């Protein structure tokens, strides 16, 4: 496979994952805004921070309002991480790697693009936002489904998966990091319930509310939530889960290499972070410090993958 093709696949799936995560974030923000008695737009700040688009927002807007935050996240062409921009970039990459994709995957990507190109080009009235977000998530799910159902399990698939899980791990880590203060043991004594709205934000923004309740029932403690999103091996958006998927695919890719490239060693280190820790050691080390280190290591890994697999000349 060409290095450029690997690059295109990796980014195509990163962008699709990012679009989906942003859609989930907006839906969560909307829900909080609508279910609070004393509405305030503060929650949108942390959502912008989670999506890492807060500084960009401030360059274009003087005040924080729900409408403009949603616009920025959903359809702004000035925000390179807006859903619209992600879909355009995903499709651009898909076009570049068209020969590596099955017809089904390509058509599914092209279909989201065509959908967003008509629906996200103009202002979306508030009442249409939920439906718009649902249809974006459904359409990205279709690409994922087509990928699973039609693509050969070869190196093409490996790069698709690595892109997906790297983006997802980064997203979950950011959600936790933006909210880490509400999860600190000093704020909420170990075992006590935390602010209803806060836990909902966190769990909903990774589609984990139902899963969490299956595991832990109705009592939402900081310790359990952190444990679930960081270390649970069966929760498909947890750091431990994403890390082990990246690790699997990187090792498949390099199985025939005489010596494993640096990126393999790096993922082993990240993997160890998840396996060797438990919730007590993480709180002891500092949740924020742990997440910061994790995010930084992912960034290093991403750059090393580019080098190891010759994404660029």
């Amino acid at each position, binding site marked *: *496979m*060409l*290095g*450029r*093709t*690997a690059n295109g696949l990796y980014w195509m799936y990163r962008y699709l994952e990012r679009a989906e995560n942003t859609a989930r974030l907006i839906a969560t923000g909307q829900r909080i805004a609508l279910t609070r008695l004393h509405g305030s737009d503060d929650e949108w700040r942390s959502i912008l921070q989670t999506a890492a688009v807060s500084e960009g927002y401030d360059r274009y807007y003087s005040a924080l309002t729900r409408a403009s935050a949603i616009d920025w996240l959903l359809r702004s062409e000035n925000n390179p991480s807006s859903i619209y921009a992600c879909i355009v970039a995903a499709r*651009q990459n898909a*076009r*570049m790697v*068209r*020969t590596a994709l099955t*017809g089904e995957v*390509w*058509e599914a990507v*092209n*279909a989201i693009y*065509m959908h967003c190109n008509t629906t996200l080009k103009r202002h979306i009235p508030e009442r249409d936002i939920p439906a718009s977000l649902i249809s974006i998530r459904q359409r990205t799910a279709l690409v994922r489904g087509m990928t699973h159902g039609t693509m050969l399990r070869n*190196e093409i698939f490996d790069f698709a998966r690595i892109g997906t899980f790297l983006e997802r791990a980064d997203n979950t880590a950011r959600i936790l990091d933006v909210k880490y203060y509400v999860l600190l043991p000093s704020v909420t004594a170990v075992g006590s319930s935390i602010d209803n709205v806060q836990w909902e934000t966190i769990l909903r923004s990774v589609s984990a509310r139902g899963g969490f309740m299956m595991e832990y029932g109705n009592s939402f403690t900081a310790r359990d939530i952190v444990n679930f999103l960081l270390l649970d091996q069966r929760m498909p958006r947890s750091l431990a889960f994403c890390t082990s998927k990246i690790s699997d695919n990187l090792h498949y*890719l390099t199985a025939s290499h005489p010596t494993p490239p640096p990126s393999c060693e790096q993922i082993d280190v990240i993997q160890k972070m998840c396996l060797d820790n438990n919730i007590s050691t993480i709180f002891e080390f500092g949740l924020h410090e742990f997440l910061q280190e994790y995010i930084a290591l992912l960034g290093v890994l991403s750059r090393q993958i580019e080098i190891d*697999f*010759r994404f660029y*000349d």
Partner: protein
Amino acid sequence: MPRSTNFDEMWGTEDVPRDPYRNFLSWFEKEDPKRLQKKQIESEELFRLTGITFNVYGREEAEERLIPFDIIPRIVSASEWQKVVRGIEQRVRAINAFLHDIYHRQEILRAKRIPESIISENSAFLPQMIGVSPPGNIYTHIVGVDLVRTGHEEFYVLEDNARTPSGVSYMLENRETMLQMFPELFSQIKVQPVQTYPTDLLRSLSACAPPLTPSHEPTVAVLTPGIYNSAYFEHSFLADKMGVELVEMQDLRIIDGRVAMRTIQGYKTIDVLYRRIDDDFLDPLNFRSDSQIGVAGLFDVYRSGGITLANAPGTGIADDKAIYSYIPEIIEFYTGERPLLKNVPTWRCVEKESLAYVLDHLDKLVVKEVHGSGGYGMLIGPAATKRELAKFAKKLKSRPANFIAQPTLSLSTVPILTRTGLSPRHVDLRPFVLVSPRSVTVTPGGLTRVALKKKSLVVNSSQGGGTKDTWVLEN
């Protein structure tokens, strides 16, 4: 339906359905017109979803546009097709012989069959190719011969596209769409398949590989300028169907005297490069030094026999409009036979008497730029206003060598489906030809381009033309 005065391929000139269309028409007449209208719309959705688009330069909003597709097929009988194929084979063999000669001994110039100036003063002649023999002596691996029809037996060659002819993906996807929409038609009418093209292309390209690689299957790759190129869809389509890599210039590098592509496991040597990029941009060291793209030294590898470029650099001299008028002489010179396919009579404006004639009859002629393509910069006399004619005459007088003129042929028509039923429109045909040392293969079918505007003679997709599926019937 309203009849046109020229030859209609469905109705002939006598308003009786012509043989190749008989079965189709008996099906068509039983169809509910509303269902067909629906199918017409459905076909557009199919095309848009599969992403068959072409980019139009300089149009931000319409960055990717669909070429309109008409669901009424253009049908040719097996015997008509046989004649066309024989003519094309003869022409393509002559063109390859001409290219070899013109870059080697130049016998045709010594024999004074064509004027020397037409080669020496032609910017399409590539001096770098002098003395270079491409592997297997094949210059034009892929050719798209543009044909027009004026009567039952009357086919004319309009242009020999010997550089990088495009449109073959439309031939294939048009058929795919028809198969999906009208499966019942294909079980009633036996149509020769076109789907073998990608396999034939790969086999033909592989057969032209440099002789250095006898032990393994040659590595073939398609070279594209990138996703912003207007024909990018076709480049990726062909690479996909052949199962080969689609490379860009940035993927290539010269390693140990061979061209190699950057893969995730290091550089891999390429034997045959089907390049969809102009000569000028291949190699900044050997061609345009101001070119930002290209692989420095690629042509040196080529000259030393390390890679096959399809088509060979410098083939533009064979489809140049100035050379076109000499193709009958070229065929006779190299094959010793009379040309089987006709050339459109052509006035070379560089010749004094011709220029005078052209200026006198401007309102009846089509005038083309010698190096133009895509229908740009051309004058259609009968459709032009007085002012346009005067303006063009001025241009013509100032640089006569830049132009040729041809009579306006009364192109055949094939009906398209309009809201009010069938209506005749002018068409042309581009069959696709593969050339290897072993064989010349013409895929039964081709790209039928159709002018969608009533009475218009311009079929170019960049100017509002559409396409049709082209059926060659089984015997």
